[in-house]
């Protein structure tokens, strides 16, 4: 930490360091004693006439895992790139690690670990070389790069692939390598843009496990996703983004409590039947969503709803009673599904 940096960020530098064991600051209540690592007010990104991010407010506290949940085109990547200081903000305020992205881009980037939405690995180099050279971009000495590269390959379970070229790796392996690469500078803050999109379930679970371990070590994670299960698994707190705006904010549990019921009964009918059932669901549940392929009935006791539906003479082909998820929250907030 050089003098300029300390001067710029004042006393808040210390608390912003990741703690290996201590309870993450976020859990002690927002703004307890630490300045937020990211502070955004009316943050806006325009591309010509088009507004990709429209005046969003959020803070990310040290040690928390913070998510942006939203469908395609919501403005997640645009937001992440502004935080990552590779895309200038159009309007509003943004500070990252107590610095101003406009002025201190390279200094901020020196302390970030970035996993971009699309892999930017060098296919002409080997797996290990990708890590070594990336460490060099941060100005780390070669021996240090080598030491960290071996450690990180181990962490993402790619040690046996170190000498292979990147090209033939599976999507999941490339993603793990990108995560390893983003850790080479021991970042204070990780930015993960859709870390598991396009991966099979097994590869996703392996990645989640690694990210979970990082979170346990106190690394601050900011991630975007359009998978509600990913958001539920990893995020302490998240914002739901839709059409360039933040439409809700809270922990997964809070969001579900606020915008949905405890349970949901899902009815599927034989093709053509649902359309004939107008009005038949009225009063069965707190809230009813009729999707093209199924009807969702929101209530605190799903079985209750199923019983009263049966007694009304409704005979769905399949019935599923489940707990509410963030998918339901999203449906409620936007009237649309997360993944179309």
């Amino acid at each position: 930490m050089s003098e300029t940096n300390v001067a710029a960020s004042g006393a808040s530098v210390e608390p912003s360091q990741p703690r290996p064991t201590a309870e993450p600051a976020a859990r002690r209540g927002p703004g307890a004693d630490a300045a937020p690592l990211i502070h955004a007010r009316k943050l806006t990104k325009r591309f010509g006439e088009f507004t990709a991010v429209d005046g969003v407010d959020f803070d990310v506290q040290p040690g928390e895992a913070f998510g942006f949940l939203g469908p395609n085109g919501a403005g997640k990547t645009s937001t992440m790139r502004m935080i990552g200081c590779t895309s200038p903000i159009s309007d509003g305020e943004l500070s990252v690690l107590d610095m101003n992205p406009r002025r201190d881009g390279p200094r901020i980037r020196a302390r970030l670990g970035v996993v971009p939405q699309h892999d930017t690995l060098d296919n002409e180099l080997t797996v290990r070389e990708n890590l070594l050279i990336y460490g060099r971009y941060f100005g780390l000495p070669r021996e240090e790069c080598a030491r960290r590269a071996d450690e990180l390959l181990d962490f993402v379970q790619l040690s046996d692939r170190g000498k292979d070229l990147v090209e033939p790796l599976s999507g999941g392996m490339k993603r793990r390598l990108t995560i390893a690469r983003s850790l080479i500078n021991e970042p204070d803050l990780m930015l993960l843009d859709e870390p598991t999109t396009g991966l099979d379930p097994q590869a996703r679970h392996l990645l989640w496990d690694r990210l979970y371990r990082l979170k346990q070590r106190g690394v601050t994670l900011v991630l975007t996703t359009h998978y509600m299960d990913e958001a539920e698994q990893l995020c302490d707190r998240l914002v739901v983004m839709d059409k360039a705006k933040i439409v809700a904010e809270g922990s997964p549990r809070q969001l579900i409590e606020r915008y949905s019921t405890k349970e949901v009964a899902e009815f599927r009918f034989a093709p053509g039947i649902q359309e004939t059932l107008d009005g038949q669901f009225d009063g069965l549940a707190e809230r009813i969503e009729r999707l093209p392929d199924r009807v969702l009935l929101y209530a605190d006791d799903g079985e209750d709803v199923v019983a009263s539906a049966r007694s009304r003479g409704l005979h769905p082909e399949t019935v599923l009673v489940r707990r509410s998820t963030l998918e339901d929250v999203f449906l409620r907030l936007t009237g649309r599904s997360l993944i179309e």
Partner: protein
Amino acid sequence: MSAIAGARDRRTTAPLPPLGSSWSTVRRVVEHRALQYRRTFRASIFGSFGIPVLFLTAMGFGLGGYVDRSQDAVLHGLTYLQFLAPGLLAATVMQTGSFEASFPILGGLQWNKVFHAMFATPIQPSDIVFGNVIWIALRLALVGAVFAFVIVLFGASRSALVVLAVPCAVLTGLAFATPMMAFTATQRTPDRFATLFRFGVTPLFLFSGTFFPIESLPSFLQPVAWLSPLWHGVDLCRQLMLGTVGDTPLLAVIHALVLITITVIGVAVAMRTVEARLVKG
């Protein structure tokens, strides 16, 4: 497991990056290109020898045999090989420079996006431009030096100033590479490269005094050669290798200034287009 955050060791913490390009950041970009190059080094060196040997044999000896018999007055008593060699040196380095600033740069911006990866670190767009220009200059120096070595082996150089012809050929290559880099950063596909090579690079290659003196062109076309950056490079290299630079020193200085000016403008424009492209994503 200290690399995985948590225990941040201050002694091994990355140094705070400077704001603005400096050699310490630019060299990291050069280092990346060098690491990539290690894999193709052998084939590349082989090619660097092959091209001059083939060209000088076929054109210098083969074609030159006929030309020399015709006792052409324009060559002022030179063998055709002696006339051709400096032209080919400058033109080959020019072609290499144009190529190095097209596909490899588009690759970094568009295909495997390694420049975007760099831009997520303390590396800045200006570092990426400077680093690549330096890398291309090194590549061109290697190609030029090998070419000059082969020329000397063929006995086609008349002056020890051939040593200076190499940096002048590199400068010629950069006068093409830097505007090319500026252009490449505005492209998303290589489609326009073929057009540019066919209607830009190749005609210049043929009509810039490489294979025949521009005095043999129709007189109204001769001033056009002045507009060709390659002609400035060819003539400069030729004056050096034939040892005639002392006869027209002012002309040599003008040649060099033209090439330097184009290179500087090329770098300045490339800084803008590369930054715009990286910011766009």
